[in-house]
């Protein structure tokens, strides 16, 4: 495990602008930003005083059919603009034609003159059955890299929100849904980096992200969580047309487990990640997160489950 990742406070709109300007204009339409930066921009991008604590800027290349040419073009442009490969943790060395796909490094690049954050190139799975990680080879001027995809990333591709910079951001609702589906239970795996000095389970960090998104959504517009089931159902039906009904029952299992009294230590880890991440400006209490989880279940998860049963 690496030392404390010491994620920095960054301005969502400034970073989004910098990323967009570095990407060839022809391919900006293929970029959807996901994760903290997207959420930060959506919820307080207009307020330059509010910042998010993140170190990675996840760029989803979409649609899948465009992902390889777009990934190669974006990586080459960034190399040409003197963006630097992130070398932390022994990662970052380019592969060659002999390197197996699953051993290729992901494109992770720091902007010129800064190591405060880096972008990471990802793509969406080829089909709804690809739920495990898949590595797609891209060949750049600096060698061979992987363009990874994960099972539920395709949800973030659903109805992304355009920005004035020419690139899009994923919807908070679909990012939350992807995280919920990715963690139907509290897992044992911990994050490879410390979060604000602590080792945190990946499921707790990702489910904590869901709670942070829900809290920010309520703060932006009261009762907005009641609109989530409709978006969730449409996204699931669009990206998982054959299996969406089977997926619905697992949307809430991980969160319900996290909120059980016997799992307070896990909820506390989720709280730690929120308090040092997306909700850093709000100083959330543990009770607030717990209530937010209960509100999310009531406003979004239960109606989605009902909707699936009735359809």
């Amino acid at each position, binding site marked *: 495990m690496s030392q404390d990742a010491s994620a920095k406070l960054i301005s969502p709109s400034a970073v989004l602008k910098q990323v967009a300007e570095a990407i060839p204009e022809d391919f900006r339409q293929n970029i959807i930003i996901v994760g903290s930066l997207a959420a930060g921009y959506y919820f307080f991008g207009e307020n330059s005083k509010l910042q998010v604590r993140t170190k990675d800027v996840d760029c989803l290349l979409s649609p899948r059919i465009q992902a390889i040419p777009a990934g190669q073009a974006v990586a080459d442009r960034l190399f040409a603009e003197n963006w630097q490969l992130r070398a932390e943790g022994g990662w970052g060395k380019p592969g060659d034609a002999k390197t197996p796909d699953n051993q290729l490094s992901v494109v992770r690049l720091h902007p010129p003159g800064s190591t405060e954050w880096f972008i990471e190139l990802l793509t969406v799975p080829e089909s709804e059955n690809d739920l495990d990680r898949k590595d797609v080879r891209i060949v750049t001027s600096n060698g061979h890299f992987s363009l990874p995809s994960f099972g539920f990333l395709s949800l973030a591709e659903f109805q992304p929100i355009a920005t004035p910079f020419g690139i899009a951001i994923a919807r908070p609702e679909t990012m939350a849904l992807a995280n919920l589906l990715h963690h139907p239970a509290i897992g044992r795996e911990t994050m490879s980096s410390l979060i604000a000095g602590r080792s945190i389970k990946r499921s707790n960090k990702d489910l904590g992200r869901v709670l942070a998104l829900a809290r920010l959504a309520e703060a932006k517009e009261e009762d907005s969580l009641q609109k989530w089931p409709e978006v969730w159902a449409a996204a699931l039906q669009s990206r998982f047309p054959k299996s969406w009904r089977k997926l619905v029952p697992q949307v809430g299992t991980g969160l319900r487990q996290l909120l059980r009294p016997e799992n307070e230590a896990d909820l506390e880890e989720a709280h730690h990640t929120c308090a040092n991440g997306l909700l850093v400006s709000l100083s959330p*209490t543990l*009770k607030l997160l717990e209530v937010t989880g209960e509100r999310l279940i009531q406003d979004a998860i239960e109606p989605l489950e009902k909707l699936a049963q009735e359809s």
Partner: protein
Amino acid sequence: MKTIQFECPIDNIPSFRADAVVDDTVYEVLVETRDARRLRSALMEMSRIASSKKVNRVVLVLEEPSITISRLHGEWEGAASVIQPDIFRRLSMMIRQAGKWSGIPASPDDNEMPVLEEIIQHEIARRPASLNRSSEAHYDILRILIHQWLLGKGPITVSSLMEISGTSHPTVSRALERFDHYLKRHSDRSVELRSFPRDEWTRLLAVSDDVRGTVRFADRSGQARSPESLLRRLRQLQRQDIAVGGVLGAKHYQPPLDLVGNPRLDISIHSGRKTADLSFVERLDPGLEKTVRRDESPTLVIHAIRRAESLFQPGEDGIPWADPVECLLDLHEMRLESQALEFLNSFPATKGRPL
């Protein structure tokens, strides 16, 4: 701490028992008093007690009074003008509001505060937990009569009172006897109020929490849902046994009412004689929890309607309105006294003769 004697007789003052006595100091307690007349009467009683040779000091303890501090000072000065100075200087008032102590002419010192706390605890504990059925029925009938009078509906028969209240003929008759001087009786055995029964109303206000089974809910998350959000969610439940009162209800009946903002949602639940099932509150917001602390601002306040007929008025969007008398009680309970008066004066019955 000094020894406190509770409910203690005082020499030379027949048929009087002090709420508490410590050495030669007598304490009298008024809990949640709203009525200035009750306060004046208590001050006069204190002066009588202070005239006893065995009493050195008399303290009136006010727990969560609904009377403002400036009004209390006014009443104190008024008493000073009529009580002999050598008696008056042995009197004082100690006031606990929102858990904080103050006093007239001086606040309690650190030694006296624990004594006062214990006296209040004892007084609250010995108060009846709830009103008996007969008393509840009396206030049910009172509210029905006021409802009838406020809306200008004219006389009401005893049988209608029995039907609406769900009580027997003797119960209705006893209640009507109790406030006979406010009633106009007709030859067909119907009755109506001559005027607003202010004394009875004041008594009702003093026991309103018990009469209405009021339960308060406060937010535990630190990010409370607004009353409007709670109302939207209540509408989604499509319950016809729950009605909206409080500020929203008052504004429904009297839109021009001078009420800006809505600090909480007041609702009435028609539970009849059964204990009200409040499990629906979780559907309004899982962040709500019951509170009994009076220094905490509730987000949701629920009052039970126990009579046979709810007197709810149908709403246009899936949820009824509580009757105007409940709304009026809600305004008093929120201590919106001037708005309560304005609301009361806006009804046909009071036109031309403001109360």
